[in-house]
């Protein structure tokens, strides 16, 4: 069965979710991954969106973090200050999803500027919830398209702390949450090496070579002693994902 690299990413991320996770979900691929997980192996997965919706069960994917669908299918909806105070900072979220324009080998992220902060070449959206999602969720997953432009030797700006600029800062700051534990790309999966916290390739997606991964990584990327091969999406996983996308497209077409 053929599938796109984006479908592979989504399915790989979905598989990493546990049935008892309480997820802080971002729009786009994380939202798709969480909902695929909920519709396959993790029916009790709890989804929380930063707009305040708790335990939502959307039938279609939201286009924004605050779609009406999220509120309608939620157990309850709280204010945004409450979301950040009692729920995220309160330590009640086990897993957060992050992305960005740039990532470094220690899982730090930039979503603020390309170039100088005061005089940027490109002004990006900024931190949003990411800064505190990264420090306060039990653990985080990063999902990004992999390229030498996005997987960089040195971030232009550190928006979101992974394991820190040398891999040690997170621990030194006394942050008790685990930080980024998985990076899923369209090519492979990376996980932090135990002692150094450097992200190393632990699984290659079907048909992807080590050379391809290195070409699309801005630092000399390292590979685990045994590198797994990611299982391709199953027929069931693909069906669930495509139905979800189809339902979503249909619903959003009829909106306008």
């Amino acid at each position, binding site marked *: 069965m053929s599938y796109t690299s984006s479908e592979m990413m989504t399915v790989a991320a979905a598989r990493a979710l546990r049935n008892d996770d309480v997820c802080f979900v971002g729009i*786009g691929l994380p939202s798709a991954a969480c909902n695929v997980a909920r519709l396959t192996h993790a029916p009790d997965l709890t989804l929380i969106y930063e*707009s305040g919706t708790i335990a939502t069960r959307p039938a279609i994917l939201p286009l924004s973090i605050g779609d009406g669908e999220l509120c309608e299918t939620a157990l309850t*909806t709280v204010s945004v*200050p409450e979301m950040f105070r009692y729920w995220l900072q309160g330590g009640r979220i086990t897993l957060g999803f992050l992305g960005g324009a740039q990532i470094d080998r220690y899982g730090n992220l930039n979503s603020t500027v390309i170039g100088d902060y005061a005089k940027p070449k490109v*002004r990006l959206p900024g931190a949003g919830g990411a800064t505190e999602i990264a420090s306060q969720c039990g653990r985080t997953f990063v999902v990004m398209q992999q390229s030498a432009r996005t997987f960089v030797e040195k971030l232009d700006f550190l928006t979101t702390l992974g394991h820190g600029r040398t891999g040690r800062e997170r621990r030194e700051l006394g942050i008790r949450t685990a930080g980024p534990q998985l990076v899923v790309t369209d090519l492979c999966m990376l996980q932090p090496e135990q002692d150094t916290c450097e992200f190393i390739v632990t699984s290659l997606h079907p048909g992807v070579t080590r050379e391809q991964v290195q070409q699309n990584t801005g630092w000399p990327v390292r590979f685990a002693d045994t590198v797994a091969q990611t299982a391709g999406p199953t027929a069931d996983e693909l069906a669930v994902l495509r139905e979800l996308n189809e339902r979503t497209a249909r619903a959003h077409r009829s909106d306008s």
Partner: protein
Amino acid sequence: MALFFRLEEAVSDLIHDGDSVAMEGFTHLIPFAAGHEIIRQRLRNLTLIRMTPDLIYDQLIGAGCARKLIFSWGGNPGVGSLHRLRDAVERGWPNPIEIEEHSHAAMANAYAAGASNLPCAVFRGYEGVDLAQLNPNIRTVTCPFTGERLACVPAIRPDVAVIHARRADREGNVLLEGIVGVQKEAVLSAKRSLVTVEEVVDNFGPRSPNAVILPKWTVSAISVVPGGARPSYAHGYYSRDNSFYVKWDEVSKSRESFLEWLRLEVTA
């Protein structure tokens, strides 16, 4: 005490050149109609405060209303960049704009602190990130019991808050419902407040005893503006016009097409 005014009147009474203005609504209930009225009244040198500047501030910034922006995420949700914001930051058009940048957690806490009449908000956050070095309004306090260093930002205390709500009753109480965001905090943190609503009802009828309501004596002015949140949405009234958000990417990309849109859709 809330009174009912025409939008034009309410904006001109409550908002003045140089004011700090918080227009809130978290995806849901964004007060676009009020934003357009601010553009029509050619207000200038505003300090615009908002967690997610979104299209509404892209429009105000492009129209030259803003001197400064306080925010935590400046994008077109699900679509991409805010081109007018980027043009102002990257190239100073139509005027240079000062930015004060935070995280969502900081902004949400800062609104709650403003509503609570505190000078600052204390929370956990900003550990090990560059923004904490660049923004002088990100400081720390030390817990006197544990010695932990906690993040601290100034409370948000705008001159004016502007929100859109589904309905008010005849007395001027305002019901917030659904995705309520930081709207209540924005109003309670501000010196003055304007609420646009879809409709006025005789009374709210049967409701949860814990319904989110702003009593009439917390609101300066109410304007009845059906559709006042379009292209954002008002739950139970109309859906989000997702196609407009996509179209905005094109409209706002060049100064010319933006100005053309502004002339045709707002100021004409």
